[in-house]
Structures are given as structure tokens and as C-alpha cells.
């Protein structure tokens, strides 16, 4: 469970307010989508949850414990994180990248190996073919999938994802989305996923938080957002997938 209580984050000694007085609760096993325009504070919100950034005020609880009271390294090893910039270690093989967190947690080598193969399989990169490659020998989309595998490797209960499927082609993307949704359900993961893509949010998330300029305008299920937008901006961003869906429907009917 993740809980943000009146969290605020400002940079440059208060000059930039990246996140303004936000309170959100993500229940255990819930999938929260975080959506909003570029620079609205999504990444900052995510980083505060695993203490890559610290809130200027307010508090954040993960599984009931204030993150500021915990050793940041131990906290982060127990939270999966897919970075916006991917951030694979270029001097390590793909397998070593995936095994990074289990390695930090000092798992047995056999167990690391098995888990590593499993996670790579999960994201569609067979270990035998890709394990020994270096990240530079992968395509952008493949690198992104390694990033997802790395986040899942240590079996965290909480996973934070910053635009994890951005660089994928539509087919791989929807396959991976399905795959991931399945994992999330079966492992009862608590997930916060940042995305620019409303369709993705609508299809994957149990609830969606819409942010603008550091403020969460509305949080609700896809159904609530689609049928009861409480803000012009929310109406605007749900309008697009709607129109598209309509248009597609028309196209198919015309056949």
C-alpha cells in the first residue's frame, strides 16, 4: 500500500513547485495510472515514493511505514522501478542488469540465475539469445523490456514505472501490456505507472490520477473518468481515446 499525505515538492528553494499538496492512496494490489502533460510532476511524484527525491512537506507511507524513517537503499531494493531514461548499466551484460537487485539482496547464485531467466522470458527476450549481450547491442524497445525485467527481478510488492512501454511498437507494446497486467494480477503487485498515453492508462489501470501543473485534478476508475470528468482538462484527455474508439467502430461497421 502506498499513501501520500499532503505531499509537496518544490525546487530551487521554492521557486518551482513540482508537486503541490497531493494526497493519494494506492491500495495493496491496485494499479494506479498517473497521467498528465510533460513537466506536470509525474516523475517527481514517483521518485518521492522510493526516496530518490524527498518531499518538501507532507509524508509518504509504503506499507504503512514512513519512507523517510527507512534506510533509503533497503527501501529501494524492495521497490521495483522502471526509469524514464531506462538507465541500463552499459558495462554489464543484459543478464547482469536484470540480476542487479537480487545481487544487491545477496540471493543465492542459482536462485538469481533462475529468476533472471524467468524475468527475461517474461518480457520476451529469451535468456539464451540475449543474456550475454551488452545493452548497446539491443534496440531501444528491447532495452526498455530489460528495464522492466530488472524492476521485477527481486519480486517486489510495489513497482513504480515511468513510461515503461514508450519506445515499443504497437504490437509488442500491447503484448507486453497484457503480459504485465497478468503478472500484476497474479502477484498482487501494487503498481504506479506514469504514462502519456490515456488509452494505455484506461486499459491497464484500476484507477487513474490526472495531474496538471503539480496538482492531481481527479482520481477515479476509467469508468468514472470517462463518464464523469470533473474538470475540463480531464474531459479533454479522455475525449481523444473516445473519439478514436468511435472512429474505429465506424470504420469496422462500414466494411
Amino acid at each position, binding site marked *: 500500500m502506498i499513501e501520500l499525505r499532503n505531499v509537496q515538492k518544490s525546487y530551487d528553494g521554492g521557486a518551482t513547485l513540482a508537486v503541490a499538496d497531493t494526497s493519494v492512496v494506492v491500495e495493496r494490489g491496485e494499479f494506479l495510472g498517473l497521467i498528465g502533460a510533460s513537466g506536470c510532476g509525474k516523475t517527481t511524484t514517483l521518485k518521492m515514493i*522510493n526516496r*530518490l527525491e524527498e518531499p518538501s512537506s507532507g509524508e509518504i507511507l509504503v506499507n504503512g511505514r514512513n519512507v523517510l524513517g527507512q534506510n*533509503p*537503499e*533497503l*527501501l*529501494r*531494493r*524492495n521497490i521495483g*522501478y522502471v*526509469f524514464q*531514461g*531506462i*538507465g*541500463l*548499466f*552499459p*558495462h554489464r*551484460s543484459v543478464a547482469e542488469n536484470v540480476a*542487479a*537487485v537480487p545481487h*544487491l539482496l545477496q540471493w543465492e547464485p542459482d536462485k538469481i540465475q533462475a529468476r533472471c531467466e524467468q524475468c527475461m522470458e517474461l518480457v520476451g527476450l529469451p535468456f539464451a539469445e540475449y543474456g*550475454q549481450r551488452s545493452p548497446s547491442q539491443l534496440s531501444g524497445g528491447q532495452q526498455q523490456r530489460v528495464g522492466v525485467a*530488472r524492476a521485477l527481478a527481486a519480486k517486489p510488492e510495489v513497482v513504480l514505472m515511468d513510461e515503461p512501454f514508450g519506445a515499443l511498437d504497437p504490437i509488442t507494446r500491447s503484448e507486453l501490456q497484457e503480459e504485465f497486467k497478468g503478472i500484476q494480477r497474479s502477484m498482487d503487485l501494487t503498481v504506479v505507472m506514469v504514462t502519456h498515453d490515456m488509452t494505455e492508462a484506461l486499459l491497464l489501470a484500476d484507477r487513474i490520477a490526472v495531474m496538471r501543473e503539480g496538482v492531481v485534478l481527479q482520481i477515479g476508475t476509467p469508468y468514472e473518468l470517462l463518464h464523469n470528468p470533473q474538470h475540463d482538462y480531464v474531459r479533454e484527455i479522455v475525449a481523444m481515446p473516445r473519439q478514436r474508439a468511435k472512429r474505429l467502430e465506424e470504420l469496422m461497421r462500414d466494411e
Partner: protein
Amino acid sequence: MSENLREQLLLLPAYFQGHLLLTLAAITMGVLISVPLGVWAEQSVRVKRPLLAVVSIVQTFPSLAILALVVALLGGRIGFLPAFIALTLYSMLPIVRNTVTGLESVSASVVEAARGIGMSPHQILREVKLPLAMPVIVAGIRTAMVWTVGLATLSTLVGATSFGNYIFTGIQTRNLVAVTVGSLASAALAVGLDGLIAAIQWLLEKRNEAVDSARLRSIRRSVYTAIAVIICIVLYGLLPQPRADFIVAGKPFTEQYIMVGLLAAELEEAGFKVEQRLGLGSDVVFEAVSNGTVDLYVEYTGTIWSSYMNQQGNPGREAIRTGVIDYLERQGVVTLGFTGFQNRYALAMRRDRAEELGIASIEDLVPLAGGLSAGADLEFFGRSEWLRLRDLYNMDFSNKLTFDPSLMYTAVVEGQVDLISAYTTDGRVAAFDLVLLEDPRNALLAYDAMLLASDAAAANPAFVQAVDSIIDRISDVAMRQANRLVDVDGESVNAAIEYLRPRLRSN
């Protein structure tokens, strides 16, 4: 193979070992200090600016000045230690700078990911930043290595053995074979060590790749061999060497090389084991004999009088001798005696020109000086001796030119100048048949060559006995002839020593 080349190659193992040991020690210490400093600097801007400024400033100091300063800071200690410290200081800039640059160039998103998955700052440094910065750091180490190999040649001047022994001795005794051997050896060592580091780095990069090509295997084999050889040489160098009984030293010019060899030969004949320290800086060797790191060397009264006692006047040869001996005693240096020759400045002219003008002494120059041109070495016209000469005789030359010593002699021989400030024992005075002008008003200082010994050595009667054969036995003419053999006739220093030795014994 020429005799000369054979003689030089015999010296190669000792010089190679000295040079290698010095370079490796300095580079190892340089890395051990500079990489942590670079890591520290990268983490804090407050450290980075001043640190980079300091190591850059060290680099802009002339290398000889650094050597001299280190020797002075160590209380006049010469040999391996000051050379090692100076070279270590010199190696720091490229390593510190490349460490900082290398760490700074690690992509921010990679570092953020490392933090984000829960690595501690220490793990981030060790497992992410340092490995990614390594190629840049190694490039810095390679630059430092090449510089250090080159600069290590200068350590000869503070009494550490290196390929510089070839170069400095060669330049001073006009032995081009020695200079060439020394330069080539130094260049080859630089290229070899550079290649070795490159190969090690290459192997480390490839260590995770399963492929085991023939090329990889052969490079690996060469690297292992090179490392094994280096380890053997280093271990051999670290073995306790049979200690010499006495250390004889000298400054970097021909006469001194000859005298060191002559003194060593006499001591060896008396059954002592002698170590020679050739071509030391003037201040360095004096300090060393006062603090006992050197046991014996040849110094000149005029040098002590003007440079160490800072005396301006010229009370005459005898008074200078007495004054200098007194002064040396207070410095804890023992004067064993005088060798018999003087290597002082004297005005010299071509014999035909002197006869033509009817000149035998400086007095005779006075009426003509306004129409004559004079040549001198680089410092003569700046010394108190020239001022005294000018004032006592109340004369000045119409034209005063300065030359490198060897060009100065050519200039007077070819008539570009009428007279020069020659050195009285210089072989070229004899070879070109120059006339040394009398100095009736005692403007020019006496430079009696004398044997200076450390307290400890002088307390050993057998030592004093052994070098007694040299006292008052070498005339100006004999020394001039010995210098001539090397400087003009192209003979080896050994030939000059063999020329002098029988003269020590004949009545």
C-alpha cells in the same frame, strides 16, 4: 661493434633497472594518490577547483626546479627518494584530471538508475562510476606514464640512476653514442610501458567475452611475460645491494667526470668498494657532502667563496683558500687538500692575435678595449668578477656577446670575437693554442680544485691515505690535457683517467 658502443651497452642493465624502478614506483604512487583525490574532487566542487589548480601549478613548475625543491625539502638528501617524490608530483595532473573527467562523464541516467535500484553511494562508485570512467582514467595513467619515463632522465641530476646518466654524461663529454643509447632506451621504455597498459586494459575489457581467439591468447601471453620480467627486475632491484664503502660524486662537466673516475680508481685500488654519482647539480652535491650522503667530490675555492659565502671582494688566492677552508669546517665538510690545478676564468686570445696586438696581460688590453669585442659564457657578464674586472682596470669592451661554451671557443678561433672568458683547464685552450692573459690586479677569482669529504669518510685514515695520491699532483697543464682528450680528441673518460693516473706516481 665499436668499443664505445660496447662500453655503453654494458651500462644498460643498471640504468634500465634504475629507470624502470623509479618510473614504476612514481606511477604506482601517483595512481594511489591521484585516483582517490580525483574521486573526492568529483564529489565536491569545493575540493575540485583548488585541487586541480594545485596539480596544474605543480605541472607548470620547471621539472628541474621541482627536483631541486624536493632535495632541499629533504634536507639535501639525494638519490632515489627525491627523484621518486618529484616524479610522483609530476604524474598527478593527468591522472587526477582524467579521473574527474571520467567520473563526470558517466551518464546521469545510469547513476540515477543505480541509486534507484538501491545501490549505496559506495557501490555506485565502485560498481558503476569507476568501471565506466576507467577508459578515461587509464588514458590519464598512460599520459602520466609517458611523461614520467621522459622526466625520469632528469633524476640523474639528483643522484638517482636512470637513462639520464647516458644523456647527461654523453652531452658533457661529447659522446653522441651515449646520448643516442640513452634517448632510444628511454623512448623504447615509454612505448613499451604504454603498450603494456593498453594491452592490459584490452584484456580486461575482453575478459567477459567467451571467444578465445588466437590473437587474444598471444596478447595475453605477451602481457604475462612482460609482467613477469618487470616483477623479476623489481624484485632484483629490491634485493639488498652490497653497500659501497664510499660514494664519490661530481658535477655535470667533463673535468668532474674525469675526477670522479680518478678518485674512484684510487679508492678501488686501496680495496674499497666505490659507488659513483655522476653529473649532480652543484648545490645538490655540496648539500650531500655536508649531510654525509656523498663522501667525496672535487669543488673549487672560488665557487664556495662567491656562491656559498657570498663574498664580493677578491683578497687573493691564499686568502681565499684559508677563508674557504675555515668556512667549510663550520659546515661540517672536511677539506682533504688541493689537487694542484685551478679551473678559473681567464681572458684568452688567439696567440697570433695577441702577438699582433702585443698583449700578454689584461693591463695591456686597457688602451685597446674600446675597439675589441669579447665573448663569454652565459653567466660571465652577470658575475661580480666581470664587474670587478671592469672597475679595477677601468675598461669596457665595445661589443659583448654571450655563447654556449663550445661555441664561444669557435667564435674566438674564427675571429668573430677578439677574446673570450675561457676556463683555465679547458682542453680547447690547449687545442686551439689560446693565450691566457695575466691578471696583475687580481680581478678574477682563484678557483683551486680541492677534495671535499664528509666527516665520516675523513675520519677513516685508510680513505684519507688512498686519496692522498691526488693531492697537489695534478697541474693545470695535465688537467687541460686530460680534458682535451675527451672534449677535443673524442677519447673516452676512461682514456683521460688512464692518462692522469701514471702522473700521480711519477716523482
